[in-house]
């Protein structure tokens, strides 16, 4: 009886870890394997230049993952299907708002913060007060935002970009591009917000158990709505970064990032059910996905195959990661 007890205790005793180093190991291993394989299949893949490009791309995705992670942590099947739409919108409307100047960029960022806050607020209110599920609301919002972008730009690609954005894609210290520094700053700040502020800690509680959170006096509505606002704003920022990297803006260029951000966050260990997760996992997930996507592009595969593989990969990930308990439990 003594033995069974201690074995049982060991089994039950799970160490609290949002982000356990051990759980990152698979992602790191996959990154190494993918890089090696890609280099074999397409020589030159692992060159410094290419790796820098990949890292820069991964930065954009990593920032896009921030909002997605926050929303998933907030629980109640929170998911943000509008990440791509906000990114596209931010990329497309920058030239209109900034006129292509650096000073204009300052205004543009402020405007996007306003737009993100506005639409994020509406999304959050509809989800919290009208009880519209997160999936449906963010999906609907993405149609609205994409439609808005289409209407304002009249379908024309945008070319006038503030130089400072473009410089993000250029090396600043040695080979390391400006984008990477910017990303490190943004992610560090958002990690601190998530784990050290009252808001962040409350977010985990809200995500873990909405009812209990209300009972202990947390302002659940405010926290959730605030999270959707944050996600929209951050997605806009990610859109700016994307613009700086690509150099021009086209309709729906950010759409891909919606799927990728969900995949990266899920790879990184954040559960859709909420209450736990973090940003570091999302970073690793982003690297995995971008290396994979780059490999597919380098191999010259058509976009249909790329999409198919992305979808299959996500399917594979959730088959491992996101399974619910057996009913017989």
């Amino acid at each position, binding site marked *: 009886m003594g033995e069974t007890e201690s074995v049982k205790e060991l089994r039950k005793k799970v160490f609290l870890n949002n982000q356990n180093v051990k759980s990152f190991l698979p992602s790191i291993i996959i990154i190494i394997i993918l890089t090696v394989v890609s280099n074999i299949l397409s020589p030159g893949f692992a060159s410094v230049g290419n790796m820098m490009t990949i890292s820069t791309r991964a930065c954009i995705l990593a920032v896009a993952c921030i909002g997605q992670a926050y929303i998933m942590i907030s629980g109640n*099947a929170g*998911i943000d299907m509008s990440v791509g739409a906000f990114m596209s919108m931010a990329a497309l409307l920058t030239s209109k708002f900034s006129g292509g100047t650096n000073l204009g960029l300052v205004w543009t960022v402020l405007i996007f913060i306003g737009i993100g806050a506005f639409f994020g607020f509406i999304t959050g209110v*509809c989800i919290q007060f*009208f*009880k*519209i*599920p997160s*999936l*449906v*609301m963010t*999906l*609907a*919002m993405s*149609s*609205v*935002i*994409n*439609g*808005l972008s*289409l*209407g304002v730009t*009249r*379908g024309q690609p945008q070319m006038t970009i503030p130089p400072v954005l473009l410089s993000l894609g250029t090396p600043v210290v040695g080979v390391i591009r400006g984008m990477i520094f910017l990303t490190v700053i943004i992610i560090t700040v958002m990690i601190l917000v998530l784990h050290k502020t009252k808001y962040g800690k409350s977010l985990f509680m809200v995500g873990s158990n909405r009812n209990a959170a209300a009972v202990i006096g947390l302002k659940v509505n405010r926290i959730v709505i605030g999270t959707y606002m944050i996600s929209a704003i951050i997605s806009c920022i990610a859109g700016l970064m994307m613009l700086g990297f690509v150099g021009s803006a086209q309709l729906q260029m950010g759409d891909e990032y919606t*799927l990728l951000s*969900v995949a990266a966050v*899920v790879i990184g260990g954040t559960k*859709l059910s909420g209450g736990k997760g973090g940003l570091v996992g999302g970073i690793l997930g982003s690297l995995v996905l971008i290396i994979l996507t780059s490999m597919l592009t380098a191999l010259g595969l*058509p*976009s*249909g*195959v*790329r*999409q*198919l*593989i*992305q*979808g*299959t990969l*996500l*399917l594979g990930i*959730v*088959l491992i990661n*996101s*399974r*619910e*308990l*057996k*009913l*017989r439990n």
Partner: protein
Amino acid sequence: MKQRLIKLVQWTPFPALALLIFFLILNQFLSPGYLKGNFMSSFLAANASVIIVSIGTSIVLIGGGMDISMGGLLCLVNVVYVLLAEAKVPLAVCLIMCIVIGFAGGLLNGLCIAVFRVTPLLTTFATSFVFGGIALWLMKAPHGSIQREIVKWYFSWLKGYGAPILFIGITIVLWLVIKKTKMGVWIYAVGKDEVKAYASGVPVRTVKLFMYGFSGIITGIGGMVLTTYIGAGDPLIAVSYTMTIIAACVIGGILLTGGVGDAIGALFGSMFLGLIITTVLSSVRDSFYHNFVQGIIMVMGVIGAILLSRVINSVKYKSLGGR
């Protein structure tokens, strides 16, 4: 009499039906002749596929599941149909293949969700890219066409009303049949509370496989109708349909939490949504803003439907002096 009236109002598709009728009457007044002539038949022809797939998806939602892969699957069915037609495959085989592809897609979803117990939301999110990816791979850009006879038949039979109504009718009849079997009750039970259904001896896994598989078949039918309507292949044609279908179901009184609603509601909801979108868009001159307006309409439709159902429910509890 009052009891009957109360029962009618509490019928979950009722709000959507009321909205639909109200809208049709309103338009008759504002622009008479609206319903006559080609408008209704061309509306049905254009929207039949969305209406059909909405009905299929509503069954999944009633069963407590979630499906956002319909758009991708429709694209795939379309592409396969056209490619087969281009390869001079007989019409009957093409049509059967539509259903088969639809079924296969639904089964993939069902397998992951029912057998491997993956979260439905994430599963169907992933499979939507799988289906869409295959469609894009098979057909990189819109081209091709299908057999002319069937296109002609679709638009001309019974003044253009016959074909859409036939397929929509088949779908509804299938649902009504299911409702009268054990599976019907089981779907509602599983949708309300999977665990309690399991404890009550309901074969939950089988029910889930069924509903996703069946919904896949319906999507196959919808894809068949869609392809007949556009007459050609387009790998991205239906990508935006998913949101419309979900919105239509919600407007039709289907609760996304499961166990509540009726597929007939999806019929009314999708017709109402389609009519509103068509009507509003025809008055928005700037075509570049059409998508935006459509998105807004869907958001408002969904909010309105949910609010309406809450109002009806609270009135119901008050009138019955419930607890």
